[in-house]
């Protein structure tokens, strides 16, 4: 019986777990325990879903027993089962981590609120991923966004407040653009169900209103996923949020937005409309190439490592969009694969930065000098994550770049390859800056001596770091999942 309700439970468990977390406001520790439990439960559910989807194909779940398109439907196919796994997997690692880190970075009064927000954010992200209804997606998007704003605003620096506000404004504009787009789609088709939309849109191929809807949806989602040049909210938001929040958001939120983009482009509007009528690739390719280069260079000049990583995230999102823009199965595979891989590497990096922040109180490159000797395990994990960003073989980053370049080769777009390679070199430089400061410089005289981060921080960091290595060495599983999903999307059979 439980098995047939898995799609609903995937979202309902965290959604209804959050009020319980909140009710435990007197004891943050209990809130946290509950949150961790919830994250593990959702992870288990997502694994079960993935297995089910692989065995028996797409699952549909009708809320309230009302069949789509009349009711709200959840659809799990190979694509979003994969994304669900990413999101819940990262949550299952970050949530246990958050306790100690939050203890130090967030006021006692806010702690249980923080854990509640995290659970809500998780629920929202999972919901966005699984939703088969365009409007339900918007509602869940808002749940995740609002809780994200809350989490960011809990950062200790006062700039966390402005960062959160900026994100709130831009995120809401994005969400509003999305509902304008959905509204026009509804106006033209009378439906909100994604599968239903997908069937009805091809008839409207030449409708200008449809083009406008497309534009609004892409811009809206672009704001949410920090598509260059709509990324302005991202660096501050990631830099000033509490470490656990940065790690969680950085490795999941933009990924889910990319998923939504892929879903709209390929499943709902369809390959023909998006790429042959609108030619969205001619927007994505130049924009993402520029983003990759520009933000990588900006990252090079950051003194706060969290900020640097944030800019690097924008560049990585560029890679994902580039994969879409290359418009072939390999390119899309690269995008999906990079969703997974980037979640792992950014997760590891941000968690490592959280551990650093826990010990020395900030993440400035100057104050991290000589930390390699004092926090060897943390910094080793950072190096692994960093190498993954650069794309060194045997790390996940290499796999993504390999497939991406492969896709570019298939298209014969040599300049694209040059940009990717140059950006990798720039990435190497900014990661190298850190490595040099950490390992090759000695601890400044006046800096306080610190010891290795506690185990409860180190274990999650290393889980992700090792996952980086494992999926870098054996990407068969992840690439198969991504490849299957990409092939399905391209074949036009949609869901």
């Amino acid at each position: 019986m439980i098995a047939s309700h898995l799609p609903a439970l995937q979202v309902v468990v965290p959604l209804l777990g959050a009020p319980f977390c909140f009710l435990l406001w007197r004891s943050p520790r209990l809130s946290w325990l509950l949150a961790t439990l919830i994250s593990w439960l959702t992870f288990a559910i997502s694994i079960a879903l993935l297995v089910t989807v692989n065995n028996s194909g797409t699952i549909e779940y009708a809320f309230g027993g009302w069949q789509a398109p009349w009711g709200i439907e959840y659809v799990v196919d190979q694509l979003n089962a994969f994304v669900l796994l990413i999101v819940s997997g990262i949550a299952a690692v970050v949530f246990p981590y958050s306790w100690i880190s939050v203890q130090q970075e967030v006021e006692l009064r806010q702690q249980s609120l923080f854990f509640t927000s995290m659970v809500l954010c998780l629920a929202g992200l999972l919901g966005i991923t699984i939703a088969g209804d365009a409007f339900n997606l918007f509602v869940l998007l808002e749940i995740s966004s609002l809780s994200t704003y809350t989490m960011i605003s809990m950062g200790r620096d006062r700039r966390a407040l402005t960062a959160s506000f900026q994100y709130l404004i831009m995120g809401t504009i994005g969400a509003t653009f999305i509902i304008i787009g959905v509204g026009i789609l509804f106006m033209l088709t009378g439906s909100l169900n994604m599968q239903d939309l997908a069937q009805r849109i091809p008839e409207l191929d030449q409708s200008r209103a449809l083009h406008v809807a497309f534009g609004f949806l892409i811009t809206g989602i672009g704001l949410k996923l920090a598509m260059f040049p709509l990324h302005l909210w991202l660096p501050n938001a990631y830099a000033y949020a509490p470490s656990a929040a940065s790690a969680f958001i950085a490795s999941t939120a933009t990924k889910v937005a990319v998923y939504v983009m892929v879903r709209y482009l390929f499943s709902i509007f369809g390959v023909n409309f998006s790429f042959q009528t609108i030619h969205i690739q001619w927007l994505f390719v130049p924009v993402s190439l520029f983003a990759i280069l520009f933000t990588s260079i900006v990252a090079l000049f950051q003194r706060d490592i969290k900020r640097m990583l944030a800019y690097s995230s924008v560049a990585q999102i560029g890679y994902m969009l580039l994969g879409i823009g290359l418009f072939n199965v390999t390119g899309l595979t690269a995008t999906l694969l990079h969703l997974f891989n980037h979640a792992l590497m950014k997760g590891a990096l941000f968690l490592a930065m959280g551990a650093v922040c826990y010990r020395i109180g900030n993440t400035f490159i100057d104050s991290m000098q000589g930390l390699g000797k004092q926090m060897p395990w943390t910094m080793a994990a950072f190096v692994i994550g960093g190498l993954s960003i650069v794309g060194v073989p045997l790390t996940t980053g290499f796999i993504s770049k390999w497939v991406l370049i492969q896709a570019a080769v298939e298209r014969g777009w040599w300049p694209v390859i040059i940009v990717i390679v140059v950006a990798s070199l720039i990435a190497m430089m900014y990661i190298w800056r850190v490595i040099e400061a950490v390992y090759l410089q000695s601890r400044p005289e006046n800096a306080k001596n610190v010891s290795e981060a506690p185990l409860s921080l180190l274990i999650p960091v290393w889980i992700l770091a090792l996952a980086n290595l494992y999926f870098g060495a054996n990407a068969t599983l992840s690439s198969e999942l991504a490849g299957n999903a990409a092939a399905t999307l391209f074949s036009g059979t949609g869901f």
Partner: protein
Amino acid sequence: MDSFFNEVISGALGRYNYWVVIFLMMSGFYVVIGSTNLVKKIVGLNIFQTSVFILYISIGKINGGTAPIVWANAERYSNPLPHVLILTAIVVGVATTALGLSLIMRIKHAYNTVEEDEILAISLEEDEDE
């Protein structure tokens, strides 16, 4: 000529609603991105969203229809679905507003100003100090 004229008139009559709504939406949008005062931004955001709601409800309107509550004299009902969607959207909007306003209060407390320019200047200074 005459038929052309009629077409223009009927075309305009069929769309004036959308056009005004677009004007409202864009004004709200302009306030959001063009003003530097945070409170005004939030007001603009609300206007922007409210106008989108009007757009949705316009989509649901049917000439000669009436409110979608069973009524003996009704010939036809307007479309209830956009109403439901907008109910949800309104609530989402107020939630965002409440959060935004609390952020503004805290920003005022932390920076002693709610002008974006001034906050930016302070932040830049801070960045240099570090």
